Structure formats: C-alpha cells, structure tokens
C-alpha cells in the first residue's frame, strides 16, 4: 500500500502547482492548475476502472510494479474496451517515473534549494551584488513581495540554466534555423550578443507541423502579391472599416475546411480563446476545464465569471463525475440549475502530447446535454487523413462539437485564430466578441498565407502537395516516436501526436540537454517547473513535415549520443494507461470557490 501511494501519486509530489511565470511562458497561472494537495489514491482495489471497462490482464499494471511482464507487449488498445466508441486504436500510455530517478531528482532540487538559501542570505547581507528585483527602501516594512516559491525558483534555479530559453533566431523557422550567438559573463543575469550567427541549426522546436513556415514557394508568392495590393495593415476592426473581401473569403474557406456552417477569424489565437469564452458563458454558468488546458483557455474561463471546475487530464471518469454532480447539486447555495455547462478541452495537449478522448467527451456531452468547446490549436492540420484535426482523426461529425476553435499559428505557418460552428453561434460572436468588436482584423498578407496553405491542404490548388505534407507528418511522427521508444527514452503522449515530450527529470539535465544539443547544432525546447510538475521536466520536440528522414536520423543519432552522456534512457518499458493514472476524487463540494 505504501508503495502504491508513493509511486501512484505521480511520485508523491506534495503539491502539484503549475501556476507560474518562469521557464516556459506558455502556461502561466492556471485555473486549471490550482494548488491542491495531491491525495493518495483510495484503496487500490476500489479504484474505479477506466470507463467501467476492465483492462483484462493489466489489472496489476497500474503501479508499474508487476515484475516479469513481457517487455514489449504493453500497448493498451482501448478500442476493445470502449463499446466501439473508437474507430481506431488509441495508444496512449504514460510510463511512470522510476523510483530512483524521482529520488535523485529531489536530491538535486534539495542541493539547489540549499544553495539558493545561501545566495539569498549573501544578497541580503550585501555580501553579494543583488541583481534581481527587490523591494524599495520605503517598502521594507510591508509584506515581502519576492519571497514566495516562484520568485525563489526564478532567481536561484531558473537563472542558472536560463541560457536554454528565449534564444533569438534570425531566419525563417523552417526545418533549419539560424540562431544568434549569445554569451553571458555573469552567470545568465545578462546576455551579450557576439554578433555571430549559428547557421543551420536543426529546428525541433517550432510548431511548424506541415512545413508551411517558408520564405519561398507558393504561399510566399501569394502573400507577396497581396502585400503589394493591400499593404500590411488594416487599421480598423471588423465592425468598422476593417472588413475586407479577403476576410469574407477566408471565413468561407475555413468553414468549408472544418465542415461547419460558419466560421469567424481573429487576429490572434490567444485572444480568440480568452475573449470568446466570456462572450459565450457568464455568471451562473459552469465551465468544466481540463487541468492541463492552455493559459488562454484558463484566462478566458476566469474572465467569464463563470464557476470553474477542473477535471483530471483526459480522465473521463473525473469529467463524468463533475457533470453528474453539477446536474444533481446545481449552483452552490441557491441550488438552482446551471444555465449552461461548457466543457473546455484541447485537441492535442502541447505539454503532454496526448490527444483528447473526443468520442467519450462527445458521448458524455450528449448524455448530460452540455456544450463542448474544442481548442484545436495543435491538432488542426496535424491530425486526420486530410488534416482536419481530431474530429476527422476519430471519424466524428464536426456538428457534434459546439465550438471549434483553432489557430493559424501552427500548421498554417501564419498568425491568428478562428472559431467555427453553427451559424447562430458565429452571428452571435460577431456582435458580442470583444476581439471582433475592438481588435484590429487580420492583416491581408497573413490571410493570404492562410488561404493558400489551407487550399493546399484541401487539394484545391490542383496538386497533392498538401496531402503529402499531412502524410509526411504522420509518417515522421510515427518514425520519430518509434525510434525514441526503441532507444529507451521515456516519452509521453499518443503515438500519433507530433508533439513529443522526452522526459529529462533532473534539473541539471535540463540545462545540460539544451546546451549539448545546441553544441551539436540541434535546437530543442526544454520545459521546466511552472509549465510541468516540478519533477517532470522534459524536452519537447515538434515533428514537422519539413523534416526529412535524414534530418530526423541526424537528430536521433545525436540524441543517442547525448543520452549516453547524460544517462537519459530511463525507460523500463512498463507503460501505464493514462486512464489508470492515479485519480484523486475531486469532489464537488471540495472545489467550490
């Protein structure tokens, strides 16, 4: 039982706080990541089974503590267990943190924390120059501003490996990029640029899934032509003078691409979420949000003023429990029924590489008559046979999703976001959404980039280039993931997701990995604490259709070398299906504001 607890609760992390600002600006403070003590799970036997299905043969696998399990045959095919909801195998498994690694990681953080206290002490007594923000003289007697853990972490842990983040690049972020060389003479407090450029770094970090981020080719030419015709700026909003013929054309195309009645486009993906959710729900409504939702969704949910409840990542039991409780109990105190219940999920989760269990979410949504808001930022273009996103991936009907949101920043290599859905919804948003009324509309060359790339994916340009890109991406993803798994890395997520998180765990390895890879001319994104649980630091690769097999092979070869140097091959080939990850019962009353 003790063992179950320690390992089960994702390495016994006392608090899973993901709120934060530092290492990766992508996921700041989350409503989805409220600090909440992780309770140990209940009795192992009484642990509710995934969707009521019994995983025959894997009953004891949950804690990864079955010895002598056959090494490879641990893939879990949920297709067999979900009453035919899935039309394809859904292989999503997460390997547990090995015990020794977890302990060593905590030791590392322990050492860093001790030295952090020492340095803080030296700074306070003015033995050492204080570089970070501190209170002014007049504020000295007030509540301290920079004493919380996040600030401590920023100045004493993050600062030491800060050189692996925010590196400026100076070329188009295609398969290879040029980076500006940067030096620090004071241990990362300040940087100076040497003026040299590191040429042809292999780019494993950009969200350029289909390879449309280019400065040559049809998209660029079309955009350049439109630029000479319309100029770059629009200088007005959609409701005033900023409604071009191009906008109308783009919205028609997006609607056709998604297979929905109507669509609306916005100048920024982030604000599409954060400004439209408040237009859709308000006081007296309930938002059910995945715990790992993107910051934009979290912000939108908070701005809306609706009550927010968090369900465990991709955990349908947790979602169903919340839905049921919401209907049974109604609003707190008054016990009136909720006006609307909106479920917020993402297509591909950008930190875990997991794909939402959309068939089950839709089944639940229909059963409990709630609404579904699907953020396809990473999945549009990247999933499905013809790049239509998760809905196509699972072979579902787009009309079952009430709000289809997505961005043009990733697969289309442009900027902006869209919302698709029923005509009434879009008409309502046109008049009520802040980013339609107050924000400047999309710039014409950007729109042209989207139009051309989208037509290309749809095959309307008369070539099969777009389709080949989608297939190439799927192939690259499978190849890259398979090879990494064979090499013995712990990687997270669905085997079809082009986002590939590779676990690093120890804090020193975050910095070492970024530096070693850059030394070998490969640019990677490493992710640390505020964006992930403190122990699960990782590197995140984004596979692209622009990567050729040779490029991927070079990356894999170098990765192999770096992994031997840093001892990163943690995997013991014991997979735990996501559904069976520990699930602390979030009771309804407990999460009340």
């Amino acid at each position: 039982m003790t063992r179950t607890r320690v390992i089960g609760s994702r390495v016994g992390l006392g608090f899973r706080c993901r709120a934060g600002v530092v290492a990766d600006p992508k996921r700041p403070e989350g409503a989805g990541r409220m600090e909440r003590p992780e309770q140990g799970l209940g009795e192992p036997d009484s642990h509710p089974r995934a969707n009521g299905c019994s995983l025959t043969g894997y009953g004891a696998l949950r804690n990864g503590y079955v010895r002598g399990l056959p090494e490879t045959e641990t893939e879990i095919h949920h297709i067999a267990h979900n009453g035919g909801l899935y039309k394809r195998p859904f292989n999503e498994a997460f390997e547990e943190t090995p015990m020794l690694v977890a302990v060593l990681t905590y030791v590392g953080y322990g050492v860093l924390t001790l030295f952090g206290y020492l340095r803080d002490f030296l700074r306070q007594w003015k033995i050492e120059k204080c570089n970070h923000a501190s209170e002014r003289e007049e504020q000295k007697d007030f509540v301290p501003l920079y004493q919380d853990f996040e600030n401590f972490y920023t100045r004493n842990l993050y600062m030491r490996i800060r050189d692996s983040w925010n590196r400026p690049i100076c070329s188009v972020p295609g398969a290879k990029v040029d980076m500006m060389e940067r030096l620090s003479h004071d241990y990362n407090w300040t940087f100076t640029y040497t003026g040299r450029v590191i040429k042809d770094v292999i780019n494993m970090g950009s969200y350029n899934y289909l390879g449309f981020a280019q400065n040559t080719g049809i998209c660029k030419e079309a955009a350049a032509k439109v630029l000479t015709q319309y100029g770059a700026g629009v200088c007005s909003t959609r409701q005033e003078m900023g409604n071009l013929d191009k906008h109308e054309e783009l919205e028609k195309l997006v609607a056709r691409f998604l297979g929905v009645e109507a669509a609306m486009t916005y100048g920024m993906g982030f604000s599409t979420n954060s400004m439209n959710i408040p237009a859709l729900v308000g006081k007296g409504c309930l938002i059910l949000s995945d715990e790992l939702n993107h910051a934009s969704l979290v912000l939108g949910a908070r701005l809306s003023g609706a009550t927010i409840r968090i369900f465990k990542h991709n955990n349908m039991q947790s979602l169903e429990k919340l839905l049921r409780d919401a209907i049974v109990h109604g609003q707190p105190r008054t016990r009136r029924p909720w006006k609307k219940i909106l479920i917020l999920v993402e297509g591909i989760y950008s930190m875990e590489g997991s794909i939402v269990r959309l068939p089950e979410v839709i089944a639940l949504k229909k059963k409990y008559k709630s609404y579904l808001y699907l953020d396809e930022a990473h999945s549009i273009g990247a999933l499905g046979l013809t790049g239509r996103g998760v809905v196509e991936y699972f072979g579902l009907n787009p009309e079952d999703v009430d709000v289809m949101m997505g961005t043009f920043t990733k697969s289309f290599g442009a900027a902006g976001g869209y919302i698709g859905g029923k005509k009434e919804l879009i008409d309502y948003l046109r008049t009520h959404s802040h980013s339609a009324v107050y924000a400047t509309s999309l710039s014409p060359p950007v729109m042209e980039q989207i139009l051309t790339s989208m037509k290309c994916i749809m095959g309307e340009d008369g070539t099969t280039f777009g389709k080949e890109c989608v297939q190439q991406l799927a192939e690259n993803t499978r190849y890259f993931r398979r090879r990494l798994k064979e090499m013995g890395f712990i990687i997270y997520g669905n085997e079809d997701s082009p986002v590939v998180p590779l676990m690093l765990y120890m804090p020193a390895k975050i910095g070492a990995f970024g530096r070693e890879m850059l030394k070998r001319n490969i640019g990677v994104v490493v992710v640390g604490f505020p964006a992930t649980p403190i122990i699960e630091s990782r590197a995140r690769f984004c596979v692209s259709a622009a990567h050729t097999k040779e490029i991927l092979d070079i990356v894999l070869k170098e990765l192999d070398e770096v992994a031997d140097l840093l001892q990163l091959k943690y995997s013991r080939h014991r997979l735990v299906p996501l559904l069976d990850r520990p699930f602390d019962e979030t009771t309804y009353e407990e999460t009340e504001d």
Partner: protein
Amino acid sequence: MDIKHAKDYLYWLYYQYLLVTCCYVLEPWEQSMFHTIFITVFAMVVYTAYVFIPIHIHLAFEFFSHIYDDSW
C-alpha cells in the same frame, strides 16, 4: 589505450556526479564548496565505518557466542 579508456570513464562518472547533484549548474565557488562538503562527509562516513564496524561486529559476535554458550 586502456588508460585513456579508464580516464574517459572516470570523467564520465564525474560528469554524472555533477548532473545528479546539480553541481553542474552551480558557480565555480559554489562547486568547490559543495565538493569540499561532500568529500568531508563521505570521508567521515568511511572513517567511522572503518573504526566502528569491526568493533561492533566483534561485540556482536561475543554477545551471540555468549548466548549460545549459555544455552548449551
């Protein structure tokens, strides 16, 4: 050849020690401080073990042989 191999291996071990203890990201003066503390503690543990374990084993041995002597 072999010596080079051994040297490489030792360096690799040292590198692992740096990574696991997070010495890797410390500044040089912090590193030397950490090494000093680590070596001191380690040396003391080894020394204590060397001094006390034989004594304890000896005592335990005597204790048990006593018990067995009595019971027989």
